[in-house]
């Protein structure tokens, strides 16, 4: 079976979710996130999967064993998926790019959008508590912190950069043009 790993990255409220949802639904793809190995570990011990518990484990394994240990575990999780199309959702670090490049076939999609547009979207969707009342200053501060800068630095490695400054329809046109053609060879009939 031919298998492709699709990495998705992008800044806050860039439209990663829309792209991910499209691939999941259109191609019946599988999806893995960096928190999956952490969740699987907490599950062994019946530890509640709170942000705090996940962060503690993430920090511990990276500082004790190796910085790329979670990305490597992700590589294993992605390899174990029986699906010919498997998504690595929310890639944040260079080691994540290395993890998908370890596969024979990979497609790295970076979703890009203007900061002001992303700020408006973030307020509107209110994904996390307090997002709707965030000032533009607060958003810009959060949007330029260290983890977000690491995400921005991944853009140069992307196979496809989707520009999501307009409507959903405009994003869909780009998806059809760049993604559908790349994934077509991996569709099983």
């Amino acid at each position, binding site marked *: 079976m031919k298998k492709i790993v699709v990495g998705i990255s992008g800044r806050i409220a860039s439209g990663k979710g829309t792209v991910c949802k499209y691939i999941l639904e259109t191609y019946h793809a599988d999806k893995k996130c960096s928190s999956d*190995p952490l969740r699987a570990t*907490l599950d*062994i*011990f*019946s*530890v509640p999967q709170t942000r705090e518990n996940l962060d*503690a484990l993430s920090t511990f394994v990276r500082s004790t064993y190796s910085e790329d240990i*979670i990305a490597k*575990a992700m590589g*294993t999780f992605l390899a174990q998926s029986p699906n010919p199309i498997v998504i690595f959702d929310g890639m944040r670090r260079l080691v994540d790019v290395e993890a998908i490049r370890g596969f024979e076939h990979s497609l790295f999609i970076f979703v890009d959008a203007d900061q002001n547009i992303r700020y408006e979207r973030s307020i509107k969707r209110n994904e996390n508590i307090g997002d709707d009342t965030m000032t533009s200053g607060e958003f810009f501060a959060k949007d330029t912190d260290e983890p977000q800068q690491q995400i921005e630095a991944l853009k140069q490695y992307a196979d496809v950069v989707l520009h999501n400054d307009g409507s959903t329809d405009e994003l869909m046109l780009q998806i059809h043009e760049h993604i559908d053609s790349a994934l077509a060879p991996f569709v099983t009939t």
Partner: protein
Amino acid sequence: MQSEKLIIGIVGKIASGKGMVAEHIHSRYKADFIDFSQFLYQAMDIFSIPHERKNINSLSIFLRATYGQDVFSRAVRKTLDARTEERVVIAGIRRDEDLVHLSDLGNFVLVYIESDVRIRYERNRSAARKPGDHAMTFEEFSAKDSDESNNTIEGLKSHAQHVLENNGSPEDFLKGLDVLLAQYIKE
């Protein structure tokens, strides 16, 4: 019913004969087998962490300090609750906290294996289950015997329903074990 399941916990210091007891109960009485350390190995395998002593210790210390000293007891209980076997033997009990989610089970029996330190040292050397065991001096063995992962084992003796001595032949020892278990297991 959960409370009808017979659960036999085995405790003892290094090379006291725990493994032999667990294996005997497993094969002779068709008991399911759970080891406290299997959950650490499962977690290590998720991240491909080599099963080396220093890695085992660092992960164990982190998990207990961060998520509660009873974290392994919880993992064992979760596994126990998912099993349907009538009898389960549990090895690798080291601390009071390991018993937290076991001692409330209706049919839990804790057996402590007692064995002289000199005899255990010789046994550990000849069994040589881990690299370096064979060349270990008595002083090194004693140090290992009282390190962070082993120094709480002896304290569990007071919680045990039975203390079995294992300083003689394995045959006599297992015979004694069978006599002891006869009160719990009707064959």
